[in-house]
């Protein structure tokens, strides 16, 4: 990302560099101050009281005015304590405005992982394809919480480009990959997940396969049968739990082959023998 392309940051910097009085701390406002609750929140957001600033950010997230959005972007552009920055990013996630894109991209590289994760989640909330490469980049992050935010974003946005990295993360044992892959899975992907048995942690693969079975839109039943059989190959207790959850979540009638095989596998596993 080019810093110069950060709209709001450039805007505030322009203020900082061009307005000597502002730089000297004199309260010369850069924009007309909004009145009422938003105005108060804007003041609190840039104040020294961290808790008040955090509450103000949350308030501005619920506000729908341009002034409120600008207040959040300007505050982030001038730099915030990480606690306040996280709240401001959550607020931007609630606003879902493409105007926040550049600021969010900048914060997706923040040194604090909570801040980065917040930025990634906020990016995911914006309906703009320009966010996708930054969401995918989060899957390469060194911190598990940021990768988890990226995985959740990939799932929420149904980003097919995220499947390969998620599969790699599954093998590495990243917890967040299970629900994300489960959300993305079609029969082919489910088969690929099943092929990681023995390579990825058993419990994680079991949770992923269980998550796939839990999706009502995952069809046909022959695909579910394959998932059930894959769970049967996993010796971890987690596989039994996922099979049990599946059986209990599906009515007996109309009869499903996948449910029937799941029941048989449960019996087998409870009997001490696993496939």
């Amino acid at each position, binding site marked *: 990302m080019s810093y110069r392309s950060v709209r709001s940051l450039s805007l505030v*910097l322009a203020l900082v560099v061009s307005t000597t009085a502002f730089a000297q701390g004199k309260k010369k406002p850069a924009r007309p101050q909004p009145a009422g609750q938003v105005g108060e929140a804007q003041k609190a957001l840039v104040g020294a009281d961290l808790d008040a600033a955090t509450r103000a950010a949350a308030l501005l997230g619920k506000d729908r005015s341009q002034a409120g959005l600008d207040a959040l972007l300007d505050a982030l552009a001038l730099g915030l304590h*990480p606690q306040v920055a996280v709240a401001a990013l959550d607020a931007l996630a609630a606003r879902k405005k493409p105007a926040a894109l550049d600021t969010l991209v900048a914060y997706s590289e923040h*040194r604090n992982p909570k801040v980065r994760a917040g930025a990634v989640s906020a990016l995911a909330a914006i309906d703009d394809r320009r966010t996708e490469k930054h969401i995918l980049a989060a899957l390469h992050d060194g911190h598990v919480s940021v990768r988890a935010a990226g995985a959740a974003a990939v799932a929420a946005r149904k980003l097919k480009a995220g499947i390969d990295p998620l599969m790699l993360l599954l093998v590495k044992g990243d917890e967040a990959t299970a629900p994300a892959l489960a959300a993305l899975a079609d029969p082919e992907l489910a088969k690929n997940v099943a092929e990681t048995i023995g390579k990825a942690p058993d419990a994680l693969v079991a949770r992923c396969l269980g998550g796939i079975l839990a999706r009502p839109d995952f069809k046909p039943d022959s695909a579910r049968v394959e998932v059930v059989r894959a769970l049967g190959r996993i010796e971890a207790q987690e596989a039994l739990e996922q099979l049990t959850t599946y059986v209990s979540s599906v009515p007996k009638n109309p009869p499903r082959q996948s449910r029937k095989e799941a029941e048989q596998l449960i019996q087998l596993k409870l009997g001490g023998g696993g496939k």
Partner: protein
Amino acid sequence: MSRRPLALALALAAACGGSEAFKLTADDNSPDRLEAAFARMGAPRTGPMNASGRPMAYLVARAPRPELVAFDLADKKERWRVPARVTSKVVVGADFIAYTEADKDLVARDPASGAVLWQSGLSARFIGAAADGERLFYTTGGGSRWVLTAATGRTGKELWTADSPGALGAPAARGGLVFSPFVKQWLAVLDARTGDALTRVRGIDEEITFVRATGSNVFFGSRAGVFLLDRRAASGKRAQSTYGNATLPREFVRIHYGFDAFDPVQATYSAYDRNRILWNAHREGRALRFDGGRVVVHTYRFFFGFDAATGGLAWAYSHPRNDVIGSAHLGSAIAFCSSAGQLGAIDPATGARIYQAKVQGQIAGVTFDADGWAPVEKPEPPQPTATVLAAIARDPDARFEDVKKFAVAALAHQGSHQVTGDLIVIIQSESTPPALYEAAVESLVARRDPESLPVLVAALDMQPDFLKGAQPRSVGVLARAIGSLGKAELDPAQRGRAVDALIGHLRAPETSAADLEGVVSALGAIGAGAEIAPLRRFVLMYRADPTFSNQVGAVGAAIDVLVTRGGPAERELVSYVSEDPRSQGSVRDYASRALLQTTTRPGGKKH
């Protein structure tokens, strides 16, 4: 020199007497007597001592069985191999060789066949021996009785003895004279045939701990330097003698110009043979000059050729795998043997290997009798010094940390651009010990080689990636090395690549706080304006971050760059940071100080 042991020894000498050569009342430092002694000396010898004139190596094997091996260097053939439990160095005469066995017997053998000529029990501790032509000279003793004995090499018949109440060192012999260090204060000169005391040199400026006879010269001295035994040596003083010493790095070189004649351990093949200075010297006017202006340091598997005057490294040689257990300066070659029986020779001028041969067995010691031998094999071209130094620095053998540190430091002064890559490999290797790492870092930063910028940038180009398992290493060090090029003229494209790579690490959250400071400083040094925007963003983004509350570190470095290299807009930004209450206190203070320490002239120029 320690005066107390010397005083004790002198007192003993005065109290107990001794032979004429080792009394206190002798006429020391007489140029005329020394001149008269030289007049008795035979003509210089130009080849080996042995009567056959063949260049020989006598090797002591420990395994598979204790043996003594005679090896003809020119023919690359073993002449003989006999069972022997050798416990001292082998000395070589014209028609015999001699050594001790089991520390209690003196044994002489026929150099042609290896057959025992004679064997004689030692009555006191063996200190050292020398041979000259047909005679053997050896020193024994301890406490208050020391004896220098002369014997016929072929028969063992005792010719004469000279007693001393004070310590005698291992002798040297040449051309009918015997030279015996005496209580580290004197060098006594005796007639080899009769044992008569001819003269003595008393060291005034420094002690005398070694004496060495070559075919044409006799040298003596100590750790401090080398005296040529000539008429001027009678002064006993450095300034008035033909004296010299070499400039050598002290980090790893055990500086001693000869084996300590008073240390019985050094009369055996020991670690001292693996860690020593090799040199030959001659008189030039009134000065002592090392041959070729060169001294060679042998330390285990490595040889380093140094310019004796400046201490500059001329070449380096690394012997693969096995320790070199013995070496000798033969004039036109440095001969050596490894513990695995690999014989070799190096050109002292270039470090090129000019000879190789092999003997069987695990070798513990070697004596070369090959003065003046010049191998005629086609020399292997010497490896570039930088290549050898890099290999030494990366050598997995953990024993040689000092040598490796020296190699790394020396790399910094090598011209090859490959050196930068070699240093980076050392720095980025997880197996590099901390001290060596530090030395490599210092060398890398000290190079300041603009031509190395592409190598540095290539190393810095890797960005962290959890999925790919990519974790950049030594980012701060590479940044420092790039920053050190700030004042150099750099290729604009390479400079741009370097700035881009640095900005990448500035933005990467995985960059450690310690590395980050180096990245910021390097950007300030070579950014040429491109660094201003990212550093403004950096300062604003982290000014309120408590991570930087105790140690402003990179934020402080960025502020420094902005106030020194930026314009009025950057000063205003820093001024804002210094005043806004949300900025961390330490960052505010730092920004205020940075502004105070730089003032702005009209037109935006800082001073």
